[in-house]
């Protein structure tokens, strides 16, 4: 939301100097073609991936009856292709990570944006962003060596490789995204809002809780979507720490038992499967399911952002 009263920079005159007219036009054409090609290639790539996924995944729905796909048993060697444990594993771990990452991330963002002095903020913000750059293998590595033994003792389980371990690590991974987005959003809340609150006799905390955060509400939703998007697509970390047992949880305490996600299943089994076999096609069907879920999340995020711009336009009119 840029200030509308900022003067527009004068548009440069595009008339070429005499003599150089032809060369200028050629360069222009080349550059604009190059930009067109790169732009279109992105779209084409996404479409190709989608087509490929459908082509390889659809046979699964023909070769395996739908009832079998929706069964509770994933044991491909014996032709049990129940997707439910995988979907359940992904959902539990993703939702769990979001439940931890969102409040923690929003609180951190409020702390950075609203409470600490500027110089602390200048240190904290880059550090959070560095956290976002840590490769997931490294986080998985730390998880295996530090968190897993800790949880094995703390929860008194035979192994520390549990869904909860994955949840904690994924929350940690999603945190920088959430913090960064929310902090940016809080930063764009105009200072006049804060002043208005303070001028009404609100305390600083009331101003943050009742004016600044509600004003940044849609940004917080976007952060949630992005964080969830990152968590659900994450493969390496969850594969390393969740134990990879495809089972449907029977109660809430089952988050302290192993689980297996869709992504980890694809990554672990794709290398060994016979190409063109039923198992192969089912793995693509899993990928297709994942694609549809992430697509829906992105769509929801876009809808939220779109609604925000519409409201902003109305406010300015």
């Amino acid at each position, binding site marked *: 939301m840029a200030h509308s009263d900022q003067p527009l920079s004068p548009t440069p005159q595009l008339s070429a100097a005499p003599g150089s007219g032809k060369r200028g036009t050629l360069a222009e054409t080349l550059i604009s073609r190059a930009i067109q090609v790169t732009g279109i290639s992105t779209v084409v790539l996404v479409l190709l991936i989608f087509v490929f996924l459908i082509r390889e995944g659809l046979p699964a729905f023909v070769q395996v009856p739908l009832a079998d796909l929706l069964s509770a048993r994933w044991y491909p060697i014996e032709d049990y292709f129940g997707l439910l444990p995988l979907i359940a594993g992904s959902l539990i771990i993703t939702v769990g990570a979001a439940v931890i990452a969102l409040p923690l991330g929003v609180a951190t963002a409020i702390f950075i944006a609203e409470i600490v002095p500027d110089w602390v903020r200048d240190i904290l913000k880059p550090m959070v962003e560095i956290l976002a750059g840590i490769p997931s293998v490294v986080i998985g590595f730390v998880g295996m060596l530090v968190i897993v033994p800790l949880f094995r003792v703390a929860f008194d389980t035979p192994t520390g490789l549990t869904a909860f371990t994955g949840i904690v690590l994924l929350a940690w991974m999603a945190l920088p995204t959430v913090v960064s987005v929310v902090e940016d959003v809080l930063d764009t809340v105009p200072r*006049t809002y804060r002043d*208005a609150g303070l*001028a*009404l*006799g609100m*305390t600083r905390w009331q101003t943050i809780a009742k004016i600044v955060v509600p*004003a940044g509400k849609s940004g917080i939703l976007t952060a949630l979507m992005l964080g969830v998007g990152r968590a659900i697509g994450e493969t390496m970390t969850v594969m390393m720490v969740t134990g990879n047992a495809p089972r449907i949880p029977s109660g809430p305490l089952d988050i302290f038992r192993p689980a297996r996600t869709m992504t980890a299943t694809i990554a672990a089994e794709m290398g060994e499967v016979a190409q063109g076999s039923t198992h192969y096609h089912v793995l693509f069907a899993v990928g297709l399911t994942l694609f549809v879920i992430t697509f829906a999340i992105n769509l929801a995020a876009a809808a939220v952002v779109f609604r925000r711009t519409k*409201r902003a336009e109305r406010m300015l009119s």
Partner: protein
Amino acid sequence: MTTPGATPEPKIQILDLAVAYSDGTESLQGITMDIYAHQINVLFGPAGGGKSTLLRTLNRLNDQADVALQRGQILLDGEDILERDYDVIQLRRRVGIVFARPVPLPMSIYENVVYGLRLAGVKDKAQLDAAVERTLKQAVLWDEIADRLGDSAYALSGGQQQRLCLARSLALQPEVIMLDEPTSGLDPISTFKVEQTLQNLKKDYTILIVPHSVQQAARIADWAAFFLQGQLVEWGQGRQVFTAPKNRRTEEYITGRFG
């Protein structure tokens, strides 16, 4: 240059106030003046003169900004509000402010007006209703929106939003109302309404306003102070300042030779 009639009593006394921001810009230099009760006190002058800084210092909104230096005293009813342990929340309820750009809160018209009261702990519905009607009438807005108090405040026009913000400040029954260019974004009719409102309000309140033009300053000022680059160049009764300025720079500014 005293005119007959009782000398008004000072509500706020500013004594040798200096404010400088940490980026090096000195914003106010040794300001000494009074703000009189039940008068329209006008601060005017070109941009960057320190008028807004003075307003923001008077209710300590500047606590949030990068103020490097603050010296001098501001006495509100004889008490120095710049003291470290002065109750800032209470101060801001006594000294209300309306900004240049209206800032409606993201809620209904009704909730906007009673927001400060709710914060102050008022729960009685009848009392809140009464405050809404009283302040919206004071802000000359009641007739236009009385039948849609539940609508979002964003649905109002800019001029209506500004008067809503005025009503919101009035709801807290402040003693001093400060307005920072309240009509800069308004059409002439809304501007006229706001000015009229101020004339009605001065019976009950002390009004301190930064007008958006010299003409407006001359129209409404009981007392006027001319600020130039952080200095108080001239301060006196409005009629005297605008018809027979003592300082050459004041005269040049008023007659439009710079600004």
